[in-house]
């Protein structure tokens, strides 16, 4: 059984711990670097032939159109699914959705289910709910097996085990596989191909015997009642094809109005997520097909806070998210802290806005998330559906601050700004602080310790009360070697 995010500390505390883990930082910066390079190459290819921006605009427009008319689209989706032989369920929250899946599994006396990687079933804690009823939930995506067998938590949307390297994965497989099924082969090496082969062997017996499968969906087409799952390994195809019963949990924001409007999204998603022209496998299905695949198909349409997000005029754009994880891979904060520090299944820039939007502001952990950003804007640039994450972050910060107006203890940002006020309020102190930081800028630029997106250098800590707290877990852009005040004095306002 995997761990849970409940009771995680607020972002600054968790981030500080993660920053001390050099293996984690190495694994992350390697992985995000590789994926960024692949993505840029393909974006450039589309740019040359077609225009990446036009495709982004089309993708954003399709999702907006779906959301603007969500009620009509959901009712149509339900009607078309039912007409195609699927049973449609509605769930207001995680508990309702879990109860529906558990009931279906129990109807078939299933002691286990196989699962396709799905963010939404992690969001609702489905594995734990099934296990509480004595039903084993087997994750089948390679990264998810690594996380599940390692009794670990996912740390990235697309590559949940991005924080693990091959040697660690080998150890987990050797230690754990035999406890829950076919053991890892003798003499397993840490070659990625050998590790993938071990997972193939381990899971095949589970695929061949499973009666019930659980999936999410990347898209749900209202006009036709078609669900779409985008994947790489074929574990999705196994789950969607071999068992007799299929239950898909689908967030209500996954709806796409018409069949042809799937197009921009199918072109944007793989290029933005894995940096491929197309992912190895995409499966689409419309209810039940006699003689082919599951003959009993359930679809659970889930709210769980999505209508809260929809009611937020600035924040509702976050529901366009197609979970590609491009924003994670370009985020300087994510690259250094990893996903666990966000305390949620949705980490990184999208997590920093989605969690407060879904859950509402008010608890310390959620409230700290909109601050887990330097507002550099790289996430917006990378987002295939043009979600203006920085805009939503600023909007949510003001909501958090409004919620804490009456607090006696000042919150993180208030403290940091008090520090800034202390430094800025006295000209002498300001120039001293500047000289200190200007020096740091020269030293750091000489050693080129860190580079932020856009090639800016990063500094370590900035001085002043409160500022240390603000920067202890963040890399700030390095100050210039000469401050504006020093430059003004030296050049007499630029005249010398």
């Amino acid at each position, binding site marked *: 059984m995997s761990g849970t995010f409940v009771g995680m500390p607020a972002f600054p505390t968790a981030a500080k711990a993660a920053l001390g883990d050099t293996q984690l930082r190495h694994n992350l910066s390697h992985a995000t670097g590789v994926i960024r390079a692949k993505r840029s190459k393909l974006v450039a290819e589309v740019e040359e032939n077609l225009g990446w921006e036009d495709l982004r605009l089309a993708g954003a427009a399709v999702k907006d159109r779906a959301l603007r008319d969500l009620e009509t689209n959901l009712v149509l989706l339900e009607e078309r699914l039912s007409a195609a032989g699927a049973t449609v369920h509605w769930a207001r929250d995680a508990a309702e959705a879990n109860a529906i899946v558990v009931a279906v599994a129990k109807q078939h006396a299933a002691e286990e289910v196989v699962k396709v990687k799905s963010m939404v079933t992690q969001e609702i804690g489905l594995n734990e709910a099934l296990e509480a009823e004595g039903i084993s939930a087997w994750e089948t995506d390679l990264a998810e097996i690594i996380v599940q067998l390692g009794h670990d938590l996912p740390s990235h949307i697309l590559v949940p085990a991005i924080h693990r390297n091959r040697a660690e994965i080998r150890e987990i497989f050797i230690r754990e596989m035999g406890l829950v099924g076919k053991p890892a082969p003798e003499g397993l090496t840490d070659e990625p191909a050998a590790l993938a082969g071990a997972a193939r062997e381990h899971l095949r017996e589970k695929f061949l015997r499973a009666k019930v499968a659980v999936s999410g969906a990347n898209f749900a087409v209202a006009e036709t009642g078609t669900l779409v799952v985008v994947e790489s390994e074929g574990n999705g195809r196994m789950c969607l094809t071999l068992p007799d019963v299929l239950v898909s949990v689908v967030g*209500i924001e996954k709806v796409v109005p018409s069949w042809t409007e799937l197009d*921009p999204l199918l*072109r944007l998603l793989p290029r933005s997520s894995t940096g491929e*022209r197309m992912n*190895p496998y995409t499966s689409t299905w419309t209810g039940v*097909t006699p003689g082919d695949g599951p003959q009993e198909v359930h679809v659970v349409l889930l709210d769980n806070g999505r209508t809260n997000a929809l009611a937020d005029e600035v924040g509702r754009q976050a529901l366009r998210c197609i979970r590609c994880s491009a924003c994670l891979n370009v985020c300087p904060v994510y690259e250094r802290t990893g996903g666990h520090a966000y305390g949620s299944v949705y980490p990184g820039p999208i997590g920093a806005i989605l969690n407060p939007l879904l859950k509402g502001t008010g608890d310390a952990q959620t409230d700290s998330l909109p601050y887990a950003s330097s507002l550099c804007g790289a996430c917006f640039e990378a987002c295939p559906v043009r979600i203006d994450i920085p805009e939503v972050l600023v909007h949510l910060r003001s909501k958090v601050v409004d919620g804490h107006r009456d607090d006696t203890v000042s919150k993180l940002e208030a403290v940091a700004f008090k520090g800034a006020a202390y430094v800025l309020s006295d000209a002498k102190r300001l120039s001293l602080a500047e000289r200190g930081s200007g020096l740091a800028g020269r030293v750091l630029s000489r050693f080129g310790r860190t580079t932020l997106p856009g090639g800016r250098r990063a500094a370590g800590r900035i001085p002043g009360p409160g500022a240390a707290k603000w920067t202890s877990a963040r890399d700030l852009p390095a100050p210039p070697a000469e401050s504006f005040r020093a430059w003004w004095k030296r050049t007499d306002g630029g005249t010398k």
Partner: protein
Amino acid sequence: MTTARDEILGRVRRALADVEPDREPVASPRLAERPHAEVVDLFAERVEDYRAIVERCTPAQLARKVGAAVPKGATVVVPAGLSVAVKGATVDDGTLTSADLDAIDVVVTDARVGIAETGTIVLDHTAGMGRRAITLVPDRHVCIVRTDQVVADVPDAVELLDPARPLTWISGPSATSDIELDRVEGVHGPRTLHVIIVG
């Protein structure tokens, strides 16, 4: 008691009180037209990029090419209605279990559409392609694509495909990038994809 359905739809309606629906479908950006021969060449190139085996042949050569794509002594399953006869192959009649399919080495099928820009093959699981399980469980998939089935890009394919059918979009052999983002071919789907382009 209000049902979950009514409550969710009510919340959606209230959340969107300030918003007007937009009833005009979004048109997708399209690539400039190119000669079909170039499109087919690009298709071959892009499928190969995924480390699939790609061969081209004339209709007269097809049966020989398919025969040669099946390793000696391998067991083969084919769907009913396949465009070419494969010697010694079992024709799927829907009764083979998953375990039976797991004991078969090779599957040979036709395709519905090939997409050049992304190097993708789409199966709609009608005659010549068979039910989904037969192209999933065996470890080697030999897939025949006719040149007249190849289109330029994803929107062209979406237009041709019938969403009422189950569809499988295949871009190269099964793969994962989950270990240090290193692409490794061969996880759960067929580890070898052998594409024969005819025409």
